[in-house]
């Protein structure tokens, strides 16, 4: 009996020591983990806009994050946009509540700074303070608006949709007229060599420079990628083309449909449809948001 007690005590103590050790490591690494995540997302965004090591972003470029929530008040639903606003020279956040039909409903102050707003946990606390029950909220998505020299440079939108196997997450960059500046596949679980090719430049860059009108009708074409187009798309082969050729190819394939990947038609179609839907939804929503902001003279930072 005594032995069993000794064993149990010994085991419990060891478990506690182990748990303590892990807890310490967890708290230390959790901060680093979050920081890395955000840095990575920001780097992808800048990369999509065309800024990298050789071509750094202008110093006054700011990425403003807009967070969209769906608010529920009994049976009624509203859209809540957490937007950055400029007041008295500094940036703060306000919650702009819009009805489903696109009309202004309410504007609430939020006590959260832009640095803290990156964390989902902090946003939730701020929203809980600002909204009284029975109003509940669920997170929908977030968009980044790149602003430089007081004007909007680009929108950065995320899309998530079903691919061939599981979900595919993409990041799209638009200019203010909803022309695609770039598309990057962030996460996917497609087969390597087949659906996994959606990560490659020669697929992603096909979406570049497509106008809004073309995106709405974008389709997938099951034909092999023309050789000259491939040369234009792959960065390594691009160098073999002259400036003239580049301009010619760009013009020719400006309004072409997306060439499907060999052996991965479903993945190609999934990405194309995902891009189409994300673009249409975003264009609609940002128009509504802009009109409400303009009507009520909200001092938005973008």
């Amino acid at each position, binding site marked *: 009996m005594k032995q069993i007690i000794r064993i149990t005590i010994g085991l419990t103590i060891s*478990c506690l020591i182990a748990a303590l050790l*892990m807890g310490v490591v967890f708290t230390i690494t959790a901060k680093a983990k979050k920081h890395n995540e955000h840095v990575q997302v920001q780097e992808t965004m800048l990369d999509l806009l065309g800024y990298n090591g050789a071509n750094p972003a202008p110093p006054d470029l700011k990425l403003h994050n807009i967070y969209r929530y769906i608010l529920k008040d009994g049976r009624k*639903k509203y*859209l809540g946009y957490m937007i950055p606003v400029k007041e008295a020279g500094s940036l703060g956040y306000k919650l702009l509540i819009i009805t*489903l039909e696109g009309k202004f409903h309410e504007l609430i102050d939020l006590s959260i700074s832009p640095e803290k707003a990156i964390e989902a946990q902090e946003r939730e606390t701020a929203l809980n303070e600002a909204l009284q029950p029975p109003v509940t909220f669920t997170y929908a998505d977030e968009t980044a608006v790149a602003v430089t020299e007081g004007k909007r440079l680009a929108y950065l939108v995320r899309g998530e949709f079903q691919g061939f*196997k599981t979900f595919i997450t993409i990041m799209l960059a638009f200019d203010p007229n909803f022309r695609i500046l770039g598309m990057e596949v962030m996460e996917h679980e497609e*087969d390597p060599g087949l659906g996994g090719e959606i990560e490659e430049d020669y697929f992603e860059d096909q979406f570049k420079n497509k106008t809004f009108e073309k995106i709405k009708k974008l389709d997938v074409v099951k034909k092999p990628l023309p050789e000259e187009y491939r040369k234009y798309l792959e960065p390594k082969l691009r160098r073999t083309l002259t400036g003239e050729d580049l301009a010619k190819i760009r013009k020719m394939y400006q309004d072409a449909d997306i060439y499907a990947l060999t052996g991965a038609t479903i993945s190609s179609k999934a990405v194309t449809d995902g891009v189409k839907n994300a673009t249409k*939804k975003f264009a609609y929503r940002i128009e509504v948001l802009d009109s409400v902001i303009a009507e009520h003279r909200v001092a938005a930072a973008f």
Partner: protein
Amino acid sequence: MKDLRLHVIVVGLLLLGGMLLAGCGAEHRFIKKISFKGTNQIEIAFAGPVDEKWAKNVENYAVYEEPDPDILLNITDVNLAQGGKAVILTFESDLNQTQPHLVTLQDMMAEGRSMGTALLTVKKLYFGYLFSILLGAMIIKNFVFTKYLGLCVFFGTSQKKSTAVGMGITFTIVMIASAMMSWFLYQFVLKPYRLDFLQIIVFIGLVSLSVQAVDTILRKVNPALFKAFGVYLVLVIANCIILAVPLILANSEYNAWESLMLAVGAGTGFLIALFLMSSVRERLELANVPPTYRGLPIAFITAGLFALAFMGFSGMSIF
């Protein structure tokens, strides 16, 4: 024994019925059923015939996907069916059936009287979703051939059909027990207290506990069974799958039913893999294999061929 079987069948049927109904989402007394039809249609069945004038007016319907309440889907056509007791809405583009859709029927008019406004949810049968998880874990995402887990034990026990089946069954039992306990602990202890990093240690602890529990229970309840399967219990702990399943269900935030399906699927999938492999290996024993390949090397190559075959299932979705 027969009584028990009858009870099990009845309970099973009740559960099935419950799950089937769970997908219907009809919350209004006048609506009998609402469901997806084809790729771009929704069919609504009423308890009685509706006024044609009300039904044909597109303005009376508002349909949107649950996560996008501000974006109403475009209805191109409305048709009456079943003598006026059902309405079929046709949409401009294919519906994304993986998302639940919310349908608002404004002020329904039937025989001149208003039946009120209904807010309904359409989604694919939950039962279908559960079944797809089961089938997925069993075949499409078979843990041995598609996810490459549990290989050590797999190669060790797949030499004869009897050992293979024994291992498979024992494993399934322990899998279900430990998966349910893991789900329980994850939902009610680890998640609320933000102790996610203790996942590994807790799950492996539960596995040892399950093995011990099954061991003791089997010893007392059915000694004959214990003699046949007991020796495999120890091997269960060394099996990667037994830890992978709780990790997956914690990661994907499955609920109790979904976890059960995953566990059953994983166990049965392992059993199927073992059975297939052992059938081949028994034959290989009698074949003329070059000396350097005898034993494990040829087993690996066989497994490779199986893996290639199972790749054919990838991307399949039934529901």
